[in-house]
Structures are given as C-alpha cells and as structure tokens.
C-alpha cells in the first residue's frame, strides 16, 4: 500500500486531465508506488494566493482521520467524509464542476487515500488488486473526492447534512442515483433519502428499480409542479464561502453545518415521498415477486 508522496503541496491547484497520465502509472493503479510529487508540481496551474480555501492542510487532516477511524470498514468512510469534505472545501458549483481541481486533490494531495478507499479486493476472477483510473481522474460521480462533494451538495437539505449521511451510507444510492438527472431536483433527492431512512427502500435492486420507475414516470410528469422548490438565494452560499478562512476545523464527531440556505419545503418532500412509495409498490424489482 502506498503512502503520501514525499512532496505534498501546501495549496490546492488545477491539474489538467491531459497532464495526468505520466503520474497515473501502472504502479500507482496497483498501489505499489506513487510519484514523488516534485514533477507533478511543475505542471499544475496555481489558484489565487489570497484565498484561504485552497489550503491543503485541513483536507489532509480529514482524510488521515478517515483512514484511521474506518480502517476496519473503508466503505463507511464515505458517509463520514462527504459532509466534512463539503464543509471544509467550500465551493460554488461552478468551481466544483472544474475537474482539474479534483485531479489535483486525488493525484497530488491524497493519492494514498484514493488507494486506501478504492483498491479492489482480490477475487477469483480478478486476482490482481487494482484501483480504477476513474477514481483519480474521471466523471464527477466516480472520481474519489468529487463524488463525495457532489453527493453532499445534492443531498444536503439547506445547512443540514443528515440526509447526506443517510444517502452515502448506501453505496447503491450514490453509485446509481448520483449520475441521474432526477437528483438535480432537490425535493426528489430529499424524498429518496426519506424512503431510505424510514426503511421503505433498502437494497441495491430496490433502489435501481425505484430510480428507473421515477425516471420513467418523469417522462410524463413534471416533478417541479408536483413538488415545487423555493428559489435559492445565492448570497447565502457566498457568505458561507467567505467565512471559510475564519471557520473552525469541522467537528470529527458532530456533523458540520452547511450553507445557511432554506431547506426544501416540507410539503414537497412529503408529497413526493408518498408518491414514490406508491410508485415503488408497482415497480418491477429484480428478485421481487409481483404482489397481488
């Protein structure tokens, strides 16, 4: 298992995907050897000096704690790290959509976390343990850190990260649903979490079946009308981001607070939760025998 590179930068930067390949070596993907860090530092584009958000130390300290705390069960680290990463690395969506930031985080700042979290187990079919390259540089819902940040962003209910913990506690949910467009509607995201929290939907097949049914129904139904959302006030997020420099490190035991945005209207979440529950009753789920 690799350790951190001998040179870890002090500040986050942008690493173009086309510049990644020389560092994404076969040895790294097998978690045998990591680059030294010096050569990588030469190909990055710096971020503005005067912004406290780009300091690497708070993120390093988070991932080190996660690796220690969840050394017995690494998948559980997702639910812990997602809200804390989101509250530490305060970004606008515009900034978070820049893959170069995530490339840098994974390759330069904490490659050993990517290896720790995503090195595959040896199986009979695939005896060689390996990390998928997309965990370092890849789609937003696959890359090691961006998937957590986006899961936190899409599942938080205003400042409340509790739904994020529930969503990330279920690998099937973040694996399949995060890539679907339906999740961009906040009340839909909250209703899905609620079905999970109250135990109406559990395993991966159920989640797959339900999300397919929601998507199919969405072809004729406009969920924005069934369950309206409030318009967001962008100033709240700006303030929260501006406070990043003076904010305390996020709590290790208690959940942090997200940006002080209005939560999703409760009537909308309730309406969709019961609508989805009905939909789920009749949705074809693999392995479930039709009832009635």
């Amino acid at each position: 298992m690799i350790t951190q590179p001998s040179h870890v930068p002090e500040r986050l930067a942008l690493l173009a995907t086309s510049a990644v390949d020389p560092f994404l070596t076969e040895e790294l993907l097998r978690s045998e050897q990591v680059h030294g860090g010096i050569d990588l530092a030469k190909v990055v584009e710096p971020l503005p000096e005067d912004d406290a958000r780009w300091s690497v130390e708070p993120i390093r300290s988070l991932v080190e704690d996660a690796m220690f705390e969840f050394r017995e069960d690494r998948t559980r680290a997702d639910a812990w790290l997602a809200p804390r990463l989101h509250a530490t690395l305060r970004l606008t969506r515009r900034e978070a959509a820049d893959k170069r930031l995530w490339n840098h985080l994974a390759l330069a700042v904490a490659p050993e976390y990517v290896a720790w979290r995503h090195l595959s187990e040896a199986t009979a079919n695939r005896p060689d343990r390996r990390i998928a390259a997309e965990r370092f540089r890849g789609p937003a819902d696959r890359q090691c850190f961006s998937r957590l940040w986006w899961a936190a962003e899409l599942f938080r209910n205003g400042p409340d990260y509790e739904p994020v913990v529930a969503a990330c506690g279920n690998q099937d949910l973040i694996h399949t649903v995060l890539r679907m467009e339906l999740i961009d509607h906040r009340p839909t995201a909250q209703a899905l979490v609620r079905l999970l929290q109250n135990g109406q939907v559990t395993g991966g097949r159920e989640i797959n079946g339900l999300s397919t049914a929601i998507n199919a129904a969405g072809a004729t139904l406009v969920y924005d009308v069934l369950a309206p959302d409030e318009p967001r006030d962008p100033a709240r997020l700006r303030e929260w981001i501006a406070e990043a420099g003076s904010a305390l490190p996020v709590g290790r035991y208690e959940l942090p607070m997200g940006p002080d945005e209005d939560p999703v209207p409760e009537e909308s979440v309730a309406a969709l939760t019961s609508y989805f529950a009905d939909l789920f009753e009749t949705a074809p789920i693999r392995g479930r025998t039709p009832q009635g």
Partner: protein
Amino acid sequence: MKIYPYKRLNRPVVLRVSSVSLKLSDGTRDQLETTAYSTQQQAVALGIAGHTDWVSATIGLSATLPPGATASDAAWSDLCVLAVLTDGETNVRTSAALTRDAEDGRDWSGSLEVFRDDHLGRASLSVHAVGTVEGVQGRSIAETDRNWVVDTVSDEPVRGFQLDVQKASFKRSSREWLLAYADAPWIVDTSARVPTVFVNTDVEGVIGLLDSSGSGVDSKVRDLLVAQMATDVWIAVFHGAIGDLEVEPGGGPVFPTDWQGEVLREMLPDVIPGVHVEEALRQVHRRRTGESGWVELQTRIHYAAVRRADASKALAYAIRSLEQMNRESET
C-alpha cells in the same frame, strides 16, 4: 414518436427570449443588447458585454402554447407553464412559473434567473405546459421541441459544438506537458472541458499562415490546414465522447449532457445513417465494446469528420489556386 397514456397537445410550445440583463457585483444592472440572443440559433450569450463580474442574469421569456391549449373542451385543468433551466455539468435545475398575458390567451411570459456561480459553461432552457389530466396532477401536456442554449461565457449567441484554439510554444509553455509533443505542429486535447486545439508556435510561420487573410494561395493553404486540423478534431472528439459513455443500469449507453452529447448527435447520422441517433449510439457502443465491428466503423467516423471539416471544398479551392498559379508562371 413517443406514445402518451393521456391526451396531450400535438404541437410544441414556442419559446422566445425577449430581454437579457446582467446584475453586476456592484449592484448595478446592465441591460444587454438584442444581439445577446438569437431566435434563429435559439441561443443566449451572456458573455457578450465582456463583464466578468456579473452575479446573475435575468432572462425575459415569452412562450406561446400550441392551438387547443385553451379550448373549452380541453382534457386538462389547472394549466400552468414552467420555464426550466438545467445544467448537466453542475447538476443545476431551476424552474420559474410564467404567467398568462391575457385571460384565455395562449401567450405566457415571465423571467428566469441564472446565477453565475451555478454554471461553468452552457445551460439548457426549456418550457413545459403542465396540467391535471384525468385526475393526475403535474402531467406534461406540451413542451418546447428544441431547448435554448444559455451560454454563460460565450460572446456570440450560437449553439452547436464549440472549440477552443490556443497558441503556445510547446517547448517553452508553462503547460509543461506540451513539451512531450514539441515536434508536432498541433495537438488536440479532448480531456479539457471544451475540446482544445493547441497550435505549436515553435513551427516557424504557422501563426502567420493561420492569421493570413486575402485571397492568394496563402489563404487557400490556410483553409486546407484548418480543414486538416478540424478533421483531426472531429475524429478525436468523437472517440473521446464514445470512450467516455456512461451505461445505464439496464445496459444501454446514455447521451452525455455536455459537448460530447452535441458531438455525437451531430456525427452519428453520418456514422450510422438511417436510424435514430439513440439507436445509432447503441450500435456504435456495441461495436466498440463488443467483439467486432469497431475497426470497420473507423472509415465512417473518418467520413463524418471530413464532411464536417469541409475538407473537400478546401482541397478543391487549394488545387484550383495552384493551377492558376502554375498557369500564370507559364505565361
């Protein structure tokens, strides 16, 4: 054609943008000229006034529902009209209800707010007419057939595939990875957010040639060069897009939401002619990941790229220009 299990309107909603204004960071507003949007292109360019410090944009909209929307015997009630802005890159979905201009009329209007922090590039704008049909709330009755493109960066309201061209010395660029390609006149980078052509300024005279204007042989050679570059780009972006396809749990490939989707929709009709683009995408994906057929497809991909790059025209003009030159030197 889709089949719906309830009554709908057959024709699409017509959407027009009627005004665009930017709210700047100092609190003032800048009403953009009408050149910021194009009805023909169905595109809005928020970068047109050169502001980099805008906070939000207000887009004035008017929508006309198809005939029959307000018929007294219509199958729906609780009619409402919604403008929806989506962005696949930033997972943003915002909606705004429009209001009816006159009672019993088919024209609705309103405005939609676009926040700069919420978008990196392009967002997509559509309008849905929604009502209660046979007791079911929230049924979509009609929508726009083609989304408008809202580009938060561009200074020209055009839809279609965009390309970034950058000039750099591959030997001395701060992008050190270019050094590995120092002996190439240009390279295509499809891993960036927008596909980018880097032109190597170390090749003496290449910039002069690319910037040449006028009608001489120079400009014909330039056009030929540009067509060659464009062919490279189209081939590269097609492969980039096909290589990155997401596959649904059910097994079918999904159209990407960013430029890759645009590229595929544009090129697939030439790659697999005669079928819907969705079916074409499935076929191409099957051939790439399956056991055979990928190699055979390369010719079609090349053909689709050459057509888009206008290579035949550029070549024809260059040859004619050379012939003329030769004739002149003979006499």
